[in-house]
């Protein structure tokens, strides 16, 4: 039923056995089997809880990249009414790695931005696996400026391995596009709330995550470089990704401790993909709370955001 990760093997075995028994029970329906299933279900639940209580950073990286994990489109579908996608950077192209548009969040007009990785071959190719090109960031700038003009808050869902490392992307100024997007985030005077829902990959992530409030899902990761990238540069061995993941402190818990993010949104036992609806609802509640807090009278959100980032690292 699920795509199990390697470290979930004990749970996978129990759950496979449960499924088998349930199929058998469909034919016989004996009391003994029912009891056995109930016992196994408790064991599986406990095993899963135990496992997810103390995930290593590398295991979290795998959960953050889980193919069944809810993606940006799922959060938009679950939280935004009247979502109206808007396309194009007005300069060169439309970049479908970045979801962009306006809609209503619990009745309030909002601007939505986020990277979308896709969930099957076709959508992954269309979304370029969530790796934006310069056009994606320039489109983000355009929408942020539009939100500014109409005094509309911006919500971003961050989920990317990183900005796309391609020839065309470089020629068209990937670095500049990222820098301008970060700058646009910093200069917005309406509330900006970011949620790292899966992978926060380096510059490609910060370009959309320079927000008044930044939250991470419990098993999301956020890093200056992928653990694999760091391993191959620092250890000359990409197999040391596990060590890089631990050493670089990439988990939501680490970032909370380093005061880089404002909070951690709990995931269901077994990860967001075990109960996407619950994950999305909790995320919605967090966004709601943040927007309420930020919408107070007389606040200079641009100044606050600037000071918030300047304070990072000075306060640890």
């Amino acid at each position, binding site marked *: 039923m699920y795509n199990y990760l390697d470290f979930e093997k004990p749970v996978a075995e129990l759950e496979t056995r449960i499924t088998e028994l349930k199929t058998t029970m469909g034919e016989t329906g004996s009391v003994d089997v029912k009891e056995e299933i109930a016992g196994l279900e408790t064991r599986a639940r406990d095993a899963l809880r135990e496992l997810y209580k103390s995930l290593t950073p590398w295991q979290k990286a795998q959960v953050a990249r889980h193919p069944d994990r809810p993606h940006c489109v799922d959060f938009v579908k679950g939280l935004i009414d009247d979502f109206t996608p808007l396309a194009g950077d007005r300069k060169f192209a439309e970049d479908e790695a970045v979801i962009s548009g306006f809609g209503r969040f619990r009745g309030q007009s909002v601007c939505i931005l986020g990277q979308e990785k896709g969930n099957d071959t076709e959508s992954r190719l269309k979304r370029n696996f969530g790796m934006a090109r310069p056009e994606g960031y320039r489109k983000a700038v355009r929408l942020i400026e539009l939100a500014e003009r109409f005094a509309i808050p911006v919500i971003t869902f961050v989920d990317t391995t990183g900005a796309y490392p391609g*020839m065309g992307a470089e020629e068209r100024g990937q670095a*500049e596009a990222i820098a301008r997007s970060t*700058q646009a985030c910093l200069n917005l005077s309406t509330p900006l709330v970011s949620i790292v829902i899966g992978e926060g990959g*380096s510059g490609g992530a*910060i370009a959309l995550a320079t927000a008044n409030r930044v939250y991470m899902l419990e098993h999301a990761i956020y890093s200056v470089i992928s653990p694999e990238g760091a391993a191959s540069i*620092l250890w000359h061995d990409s197999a040391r990704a596990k060590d890089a993941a631990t050493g670089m402190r990439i988990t939501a818990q680490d970032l909370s401790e380093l005061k*880089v993010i404002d909070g951690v949104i709990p995931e269901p036992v077994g990860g967001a993909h075990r109960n996407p609806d619950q994950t999305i609802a909790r995320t919605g509640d967090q966004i709601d709370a943040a927007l309420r807090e930020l919408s107070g009278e007389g606040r200079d959100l641009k100044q606050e955001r600037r000071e918030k980032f300047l304070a*990072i690292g000075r306060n640890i």
Partner: protein
Amino acid sequence: MNWITNYVRPRINSMFGKRDIPDNLWIKCPETGEMVFHKELEDNFWVIPSSGYHMKIPVDARLKSFLDDQWYERLKLPSVPQDPLKFRDVKRYTDRLKEYRNKTGLDDSVVVALGSLEDLPVVVACHDFTFMGGSLGMAAGEAIVTGIMKAIEFNRPFIMFAASGGARMQEGILSLMQLPRTTAAVDMLREKGLPYIVVLTNPTTGGVSASYAMLGDIHIAEPGAVIGFAGKRVIEQTIREKLPDDFQTAEYLKAHGMLDMVVPRHELRPTISRILRILLKMPPSADRAAIETDVQDDAASATTTEKPAADQPAAA
């Protein structure tokens, strides 16, 4: 003990012991392979005289060659947490830092200087590539923020000499946070109406190009400098194609609209002075022709009388 240990060994020891002459008196031009005597190279601002190849230049030599009277005041920079993540790869990060401090005589990769450019007071920040690849961590980020604040305080233009492989992995997410931090500082400079000139030198990539190095009012690059977001190798692996030879060079970037001009090192002083004076609506420097000749002479004599801080050529 015999006559050999008593008599011969001291002579051999003295022969080998006295070799405190740098072992890199001759420097090879990476382009033509020509061997150039180090003195000749230093006198020519680390530009190979015959080929015009721009070698990496130590920060002290850079600042002296750029500022009036080869004089600058180094700004005292705030201290930042050392090794906030307690990071180690094949080496402990603290050991690495010590090593580079000993080797370069610098605290970290960015130096901020106060000085004058053809009588116009300026603040200059300069990366030293020999310090951990000029990488951007908390110290470098804080240096840039401090430099910009100083420029605002003294109402001076800010000039950035970038040379960096990107964010410093050993400081993880705290390095990535230097992207929005420096961007916020650049915005503050802009709001004060002060010019921000970026000189992109070889190489400027990763997180540095994706933030302050691509947010200048004017972008100038030195000939042949490699400038980009992703590394060439990463791109080749992603697209599985060979990239053009001039890919990501200053000239290539200029052709793709990312730079205002490509200027040889010898001409940076008059060029930037001229731009600043135009932007600030100041008259041209008193007797520009005379000053320019003067500058060349002064700078040449500077490098013959004073040795650069780091007494070895940068790696090519």
